[in-house]
């Protein structure tokens, strides 16, 4: 790791001022993506601004139709939250399936969402649950937030403060993991919302990162059963292909995981 200067602001205003006052800064949350990148010298910000001491970024609140989670909330806290479990059990199951125990004790929902790793879990929940992303300066719909591999609508210096999930009628999450890295190779988050709309978000597979599978949504809106997806296939040219799984295999896995998510509504299915 190259030398860097660490800051721990107590307010959003202080964090933004630190960012804007330096030419080369990066926000730090749980650090479980950023610190490995720093150690490999893939990133070398001169300033690290730790956002975890900012009170607005902490905490979980559940209302009649929303689950609101502060950006610095750790995966383990989401996984164990009884109120979230009662409202959106698949969201707890997703949080509890990220990495391993030690990683879940440090990694945060805001860090995962803002990083938008194409194999991360949370972006699929944010997109499928039609979440609203609150930053220090504006409010973004999930559909506008994710903009391709490791790319989001966040402007330089903008801080993700909290994520507001719509509580659906029912939702399920199914994931096929890489057996070594435990990252998703194909995962589907399927939600039927209270207005009857179905949203299917796929992570781990698309060559542009997380995406909505609109053809699957149309079929499931009429018939929320695994059979509704029979014969539906994705174009492999839209999938990532690598040493772990070629694109046609990933396209196949997405269809299988989507069916499994529908079979497991109200819970999580992790392979």
């Amino acid at each position, binding site marked *: *790791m*190259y*030398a*860097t*200067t*660490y800051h*721990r602001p107590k307010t959003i205003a202080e964090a933004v001022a630190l960012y804007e006052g330096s030419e080369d800064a990066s926000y*730090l949350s749980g*650090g*479980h993506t950023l*610190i*490995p990148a*720093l*150690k490999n010298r893939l990133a070398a910000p001169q300033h*690290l601004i*730790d956002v*975890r001491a900012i009170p607005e970024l902490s905490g979980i609140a559940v209302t009649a139709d929303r689950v609101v989670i502060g950006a610095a909330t750790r995966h*383990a806290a989401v996984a164990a939250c009884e109120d979230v479990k009662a409202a959106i059990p698949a969201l707890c199951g997703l949080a509890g399936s990220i*990495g*391993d*125990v*030690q*990683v879940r*004790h*440090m990694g945060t929902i805001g860090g995962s969402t803002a990083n938008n790793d194409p194999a991360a879990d949370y972006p699929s929940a944010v997109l499928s649950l039609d979440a609203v992303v609150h930053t220090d300066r504006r409010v973004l719909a999930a559909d506008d937030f994710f903009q391709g591999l490791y790319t989001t609508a966040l402007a330089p210096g903008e801080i993700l403060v909290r994520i507001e999930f719509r509580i659906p009628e029912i939702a399920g999450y199914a994931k096929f993991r890489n057996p070594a890295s*435990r990252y998703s190779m194909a995962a589907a988050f399927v939600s039927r919302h209270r207005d009857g709309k179905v949203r299917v978000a796929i992570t781990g597979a698309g060559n542009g990162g997380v995406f909505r599978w609109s053809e699957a949504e149309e079929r499931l809106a009429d018939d929320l059963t695994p059979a509704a997806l029979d014969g539906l296939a994705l174009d492999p040219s839209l999938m990532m292909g690598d040493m772990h799984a070629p694109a046609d295999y990933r396209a196949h896995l997405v269809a299988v995981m989507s069916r499994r998510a529908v079979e497991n509504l109200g819970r999580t299915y992790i392979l």
Partner: protein
Amino acid sequence: MSQVTITINGKPETREVEDRTLLVQFIREHVGLTGTHVGCDTTQCGACTVHLDGVAVKSCTVLAVAADGAAVTTIEGLAEGGTLHPVQQAFHEHHGLQCGYCTPGMIMASVDMIRRHDGVLDEATVRHELEGNICRCTGYHNIVKAVLDAAEKHRAAHAAAAE
């Protein structure tokens, strides 16, 4: 450089360190407690597991300066005098180690697991929850036996204490 104070195994340790110093480097190189191991240095193997404010974390992926003011427990902080911690004792009795390199991390992860589950564990849960700790000797079988035994004793001790 920053002045960092971390309470390690109950003793406050203050050092002047570079901001890029990792918690595991602080523990091993600055404080001299070498029981915490560095295996992969990529957040995968779990050999560097310590407890940070009461929960198991991989100390190769935490900045020391970010742990300023925190309390850390390492493998050296488990035994009381000459008496091994029950999880250490169980690893000893079940031969839950071969080369021993992963053992400090395995034990710290296991203590955390038993605490979180109040000792109520089955084999599948133990295997699943040790996902973040890799034993290259593949000695998992006896590690799992040791954790289950320690969990059972933890439960019995707490039941006895409650009576």
